[in-house]
């Protein structure tokens, strides 16, 4: 622990929050055509918005909002899971929540249930995320080491991806098969405010459930028994976090597809800065996740127009080497 890095909680949150604001506004400025953004923002409020007003409010704003909310969700869920399982490799991507969510959403969307019931797609995402998370937890057991947890996660991820491919191959739409990449890599392009409103209820509910768990997670760092003597019910805490992750990650992934490594990398980067305290990590990871995903989504748009780079490609390019670094580090401790 380097005391120099241990910032005051308020300072860190303020720095991260201003970074998120900066990236959010930058995101609004980047599109396939240069746009007078301030004028567009003003004109989007008119009774009959102009064309640039429509581009601002119906294309760029939802994109930035979805990146913000999804990034925050993944960062927050990663921090909460790492705290709960006291395992540095726990995250929505690695232990199957995200691919489970994608599977649930695919099952609903391509077979027409989304047309019958407005919220069927995010609800499928939530159910898939919960099921996958719970299965990994069951397989790995309560006191799982990193390796067991990762292996269980690999198995569930592989199963979910195989099921996604199978469903997309069986789907009646001729466009379905080509969209495997979208669900595996994630994309924030071409979404609408309607998509944003669809994901928001589950995401907010999940956030609210998670933000109250900080104190319990702090107690848990002292060990399960100590936490129990402090009056914390582990069963309740576990289910609360699993449900919260399912609600928020399930809703977000049902719109964007599974975006890798945000939930793994962000809590790790911020942990030393919050003094290794899970409660303080939650808010920081939410802000950090939002900043990372906004930045990655901006980067996808800097490639020449027409190259449809999925945002998950960039987060994985950054995240996978980081994952390898974590493995090397943990190996050094074990030896």
């Amino acid at each position, binding site marked *: 622990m380097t005391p120099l890095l241990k910032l005051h909680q308020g300072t860190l949150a303020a720095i991260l929050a201003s970074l998120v604001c900066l990236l959010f506004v930058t995101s609004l400025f980047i599109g396939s055509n240069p746009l007078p953004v301030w004028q567009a923002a003003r004109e989007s409020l008119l009774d009959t918005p102009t064309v640039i007003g429509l581009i601002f409010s119906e294309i760029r704003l939802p994109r930035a909002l979805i990146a913000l909310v999804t990034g925050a969700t993944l960062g927050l869920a990663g921090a909460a899971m790492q705290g709960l399982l006291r395992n540095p490799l726990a995250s929505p991507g690695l232990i199957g929540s995200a691919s489970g969510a994608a599977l649930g959403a695919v099952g609903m969307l391509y077979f027409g249930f989304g047309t019958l019931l407005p919220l069927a797609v995010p609800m499928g995402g939530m159910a898939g995320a919960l099921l996958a998370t719970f299965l990994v937890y069951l397989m790995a057991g309560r006191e799982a080491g990193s390796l067991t947890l990762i292996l269980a996660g690999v198995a569930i991820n592989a199963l979910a991806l195989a099921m996604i491919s199978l469903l997309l191959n069986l789907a009646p*739409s001729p466009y379905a098969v080509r969209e495997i990449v979208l669900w595996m890599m994630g994309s924030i392009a071409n979404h609408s405010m309607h998509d944003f409103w669809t994901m928001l209820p589950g995401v907010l509910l999940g956030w609210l459930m998670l933000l109250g768990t900080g104190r319990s997670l702090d107690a848990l760092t002292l060990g399960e028994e100590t936490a129990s003597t402090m009056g914390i019910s582990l069963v309740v805490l576990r289910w609360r976090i699993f449900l919260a992750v399912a609600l928020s990650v399930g809703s977000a992934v049902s719109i964007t597809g599974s975006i890798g490594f945000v939930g793994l990398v962000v809590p790790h980067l911020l942990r030393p800065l919050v003094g290794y305290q899970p409660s303080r990590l939650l808010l920081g990871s939410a802000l950090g996740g939002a900043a990372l995903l906004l930045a990655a989504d901006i980067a996808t748009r800097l490639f020449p127009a027409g190259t449809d780079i999925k945002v998950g490609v960039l987060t994985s390019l950054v995240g996978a080497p980081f994952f390898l670094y974590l493995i090397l580090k943990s190996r050094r401790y074990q030896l």
Partner: protein
Amino acid sequence: MHRGLLTCLLLIGMISTVGGAEHPRRVVSVNLCTDQLLLMLGEPGQIASVSHLALEPNSSYMARQATDYPINHGKAEEILALKPDLIVAGAYTDRSLIALLKKLGYRVEQFPLSSSIDDIRDNIRLMARLIGRGVRGEALIAEMDRRLQQVTRRRPAVRPRGVFYQPNGYTGGIDTLQHSALELAGWENIAASEGVVGYGTIDLERLVLARPEQLFTSSYAPGTRSRGQDQLEHPVLRRLTRGRAPVEVGYKYWICGGPMIADAVEILHRSLPR
């Protein structure tokens, strides 16, 4: 006199054999586009088989007529069993099949793709010449031209902006039948003004900035759902066209070039704002 009669008989005989050689009696088509031209131009007794795609009503304009004939799936064995004297195929029909049929000594004719009305005329003439139905071919072309002229005479002076917008942002730019049809009907094709050549994608922001007054779709699989298809329901498009729903123009009018393009042009013309 005797010799004269003989010469005369010989001449008649030669003419009839020459005529017989020019008119294939068992034509097999292995491609959706040649299927339709063959069904439009051929004599019923001349058509030995059309491909199974000709029965599919979303992509085949001649689906009803195709039910009268034996169906093939483009497999060498079934084609040989049909004992064809002419096999018609598309430019991109399975190369190994074409090579095999030619090696076995069959006459195979391949038709290029159509991306303009001129290409359509050329392909009709090519089919008519190959199967000895020149007069019928010219009549078909004349009828198509008459219908197209009827529409072009009534084109508005100021052309409204329209565009085909398909799943995953695909559109028809310059050198496509969709472009030719839009222009003939009196629309300005936004995809062409934005520099799209052939069938390509157009970015959503670029599309919105070009302010289309009407969107057109041509559904390949109506009633199914995917992310790519959902993109057509993006709220910005509906607000841009002031609530007007996209006009659907069947896929069968341009998946292959043929006189049915006139139907598409008429639909596009009817959807011009009044």
